[in-house]
């Protein structure tokens, strides 16, 4: 895990979450902006997955439990897909709010992943 990338990811996920919740409460249906924000969050998670696979091979070992880390990472990867699917099926503003909820949940999970990698057991 790369510290600055993780920090960036938490900030982006929080921003995307707040954006989607504001859009949803402003009665906007899921659209290019909200779905795009979620897509960016998902993209960063995929990048994080690649980093997590490569890092231990180049000597960047997690201080905590790797399985626990992956439970978070894989759950986080699934959430935007589930939320996005829901947003396509249920076309109303609450789906936009839910997309925001997905992003905020991911922000918390990435933060926890950072703790597992850098702090736990160290």
């Amino acid at each position, binding site marked *: 895990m790369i510290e600055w990338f993780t920090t960036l990811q938490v900030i982006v996920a929080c921003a995307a979450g707040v954006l989607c919740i504001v859009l949803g409460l402003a009665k906007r249906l899921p659209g290019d902006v909200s779905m795009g924000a979620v897509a960016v969050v998902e993209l960063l998670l995929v990048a994080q997955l690649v980093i997590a696979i490569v890092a231990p091979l180049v000597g960047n070992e997690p201080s905590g439990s790797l*399985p626990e880390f992956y*439970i978070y990472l894989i759950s986080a990867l699934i959430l935007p897909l589930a939320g996005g699917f829901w947003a396509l099926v249920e076309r*109303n503003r*609450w789906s936009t*709010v839910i997309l925001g*909820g997905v992003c905020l949940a991911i922000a918390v999970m990435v933060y926890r992943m950072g703790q597992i990698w850098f702090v736990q057991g160290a």
Partner: protein
Amino acid sequence: MSAREHGTETGGARRMSGAGRVLVFVYGVLALAATGRSVFQIIDRFHEAPIAFSLSAVAAVVYIVATIALVARGVVWFRVAWITITFELVGVLVVGSLSLFAPAVLGLHDIDPFGRDATVWSVFGMGYLFIPLALPVLGLLWLRSHRPSAAPDGAR
């Protein structure tokens, strides 16, 4: 049957309409969080705090059932939702209090809600931003104001 197609604001006809969907979503995420964590804890270190981790797993199952019960329609599921959500409220209050004042009863080594023994209900769900404490209250309020109207919904 047409109530289903009308979707958002039909009130009692379908419990998870409008803002209720957000409630269901948060329940889903918490179910996922509790399941992931308890499965990992049980596989990795069950012997360290068997009572706490078993409770964790029970909590996870209850969250999953509650999520389904909120989505599903009909009088029976409504009752299931009542029971599971009440169970959650009792659980978070009892386990939360025990983890604070008598952690030894649960076999916990510390009361750190972020520590390695932590469960969803430890310290009233502090490790989960107190969502486990707020959610059953919101859930019960939601159920109270969205009783299934006996005729079209239950008869189905």
